[in-house]
């Protein structure tokens, strides 16, 4: 095992001197992702707020059919624009997000106490129009309700009769559990970090060594090949784990700065939470190191290895994306699926739910098992002469 230790020590020392390794493993993930995500949240939040608070300019066709409605809108801060010739065109051209048309039969229906038609014109595929459209609809419905109540009262009927049900929301979420709404992306980021943190090292210690023609001299030393391979994989794992740990610390520092809107959220990641997450995600670092080392071993050069990596980075994304798009309830069997189980567990840990210990065990052991199988395959590749001489 001395050979393994020697290789490991040398690779760590050498890669700590490599600016590319430091940048990729220890800087890029830990710095970029947290800042990117918190920055993005700020941006979304402020854009949303701006749309919600901005004066609403609303072109109205047929305003003269409903003068009191127009007054109501103006009282609520809407700037009613003069009647446009073609409101559909204005919306299509994105001059305004939303327009309304009061139809000619409005006045007649109104007088007869029948529902009076108003068209709300917008383009649902334009997300930025959603907030103004919602505001307009709420105002119109509010006006309708107000008039409805007045009509009932005039006829001597209590307006409550028209609302037979009263709904009350009782929310059992806690500030901690609501945090998952804001950081649903955290498992995803961590999963990617495990891979990005390992990528450069995996390529440099195998394909890079081959390209620099130092692999042949190395293998002439009296050390079993699997130990050389294992030493390299261990280095890659350690860098990936360091990358993960730093990313978590960085999130801990940055998350409290995140805008949380109207929900009260507790976004502090306690030390215990961090350690639990690290425990759950660490096997992924091993899996990533083994998988990437295996792939990079086939490549003749760093560049060739790089071309494989673009595809590999999709692997950790798939389960996370499925989970984000279609959140499911955590169940035992899922804990046997590497990458998926980590997504689930980290979600539960962040929500501060108690997780069965068996789940930890299943997730860790299933991921480690696959990592180990990949590592054994990688090691056996190192026993093949093809590995060394495919470059010649």
């Amino acid at each position: 095992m001395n050979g393994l230790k020697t290789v490991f020590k040398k690779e760590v020392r050498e890669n700590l001197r490599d600016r590319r390794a430091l940048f990729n493993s220890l800087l890029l993930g830990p710095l970029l992702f947290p800042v990117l995500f918190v920055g993005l949240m700020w941006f979304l939040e402020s854009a949303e707020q701006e749309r919600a608070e901005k004066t609403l300019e609303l072109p109205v066709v047929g305003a003269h059919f409903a003068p009191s409605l127009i007054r109501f809108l103006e009282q609520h801060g809407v700037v009613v624009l003069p009647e446009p010739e073609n409101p559909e065109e204005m919306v299509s051209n994105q001059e305004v997000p939303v327009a309304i048309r009061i139809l000619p039969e409005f006045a007649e229906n109104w007088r007869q106490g029948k529902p009076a038609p108003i068209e709300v014109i917008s383009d649902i595929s334009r997300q930025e129009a959603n907030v103004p459209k919602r505001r307009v609809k709420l105002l119109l419905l509010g006006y309708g309700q107000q008039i409805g109540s007045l009509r009932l009262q005039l006829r001597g009927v209590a307006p409550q009769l028209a609302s037979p049900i009263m709904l009350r929301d009782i929310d059992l979420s806690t500030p901690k559990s609501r945090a998952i709404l804001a950081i649903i992306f955290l498992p995803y980021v961590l999963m990617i970090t495990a891979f990005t943190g390992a990528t450069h090292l995996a390529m440099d210690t195998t394909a890079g060594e081959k390209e620099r023609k130092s692999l042949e001299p190395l293998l002439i030393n009296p050390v079993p090949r699997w130990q050389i391979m294992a030493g390299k994989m261990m280095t890659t794992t350690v860098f990936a784990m360091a990358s993960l740990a730093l990313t978590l610390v960085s999130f801990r520092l940055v998350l409290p700065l995140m805008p949380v809107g109207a929900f009260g959220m507790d976004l502090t990641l306690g030390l215990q939470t961090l350690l639990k997450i690290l425990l759950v995600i660490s096997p992924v670092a091993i899996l990533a190191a083994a998988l990437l080392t295996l792939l990079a071993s086939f490549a003749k050069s760093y560049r060739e290895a790089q071309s494989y990596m673009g595809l590999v980075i999709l692997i950790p994304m798939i389960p996370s994306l499925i989970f984000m798009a279609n959140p499911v309830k955590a169940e035992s069997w899922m804990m046997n699926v590497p990458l998926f189980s980590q997504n689930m567990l980290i979600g539960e840990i962040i929500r501060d739910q108690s997780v069965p210990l068996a789940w930890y065990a299943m997730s860790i052991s299933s991921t480690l098992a696959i990592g180990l199988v990949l590592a054994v395959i990688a090691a056996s590749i190192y026993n093949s002469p093809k590995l060394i001489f495919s470059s010649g």
Partner: protein
Amino acid sequence: MIKVTDLHKSFGDIKAVNGISFEAKDGEITGLLGPNGAGKTTTLRMLYTLLPPDSGEIKIDGLDPKNDAIAIKRTLGVVPDGRGLYTRMTARENIRYFGELHGMARKDIRTRIDELVETLDMADFIERRTEGFSQGQRVKVAIARAMIHKPQTVLMDEPSNGLDVMSTRALRKYILGLKAHGHSIVLSTHIMQEVAALCDRIVIISSGKVAADGTAEELLERSGCESLEDAFVQLIGSEEGLLA
């Protein structure tokens, strides 16, 4: 002491080594001479256990690479075709790494490196990172890391490749020193002068076979030529791929 009997190795349809036999004795320098692509590097790679032969037998100090790869590696010092150094480490760290892989104690490595710095004249650059080293400096580091564990048998693949005149002279002096200490040395080259200047025994390899084998005098006698160079050309059948 190396004994090679009827070695064969093919890559697909190409017969790289097609029945090579020779002996390299202790205290002698054995030169494998032949044009590029003759099978010298493949032969050496089989000697230092990185390639398994298809058939034939290799004995190095009585050990067979098939069964005792690790034990053979302990007794071998190899300067292979690939001289890649770790550029983010100093020359000393490069050499120390190989010492550690041989399981040597820290103290022994230190003394041994000091000796090698002295013999190979590396004092100027031993503490420098190997990034940007000249060919001569790189070869010296490659030799030092191959010799760190005082191997009895030394294999060198085209050792003077890319060296200037001064470095070549220093290298030859070093190799002759090894011989004087009783090491068995095998080097491959396509440079005729090098064999003439260094080797006690010359194995001429052409198209994966031994074209001729013997001391310089024996080769002259057998070919009937006046000069060694003419003898080489005649024995190989062509001067293509050889350098005077």
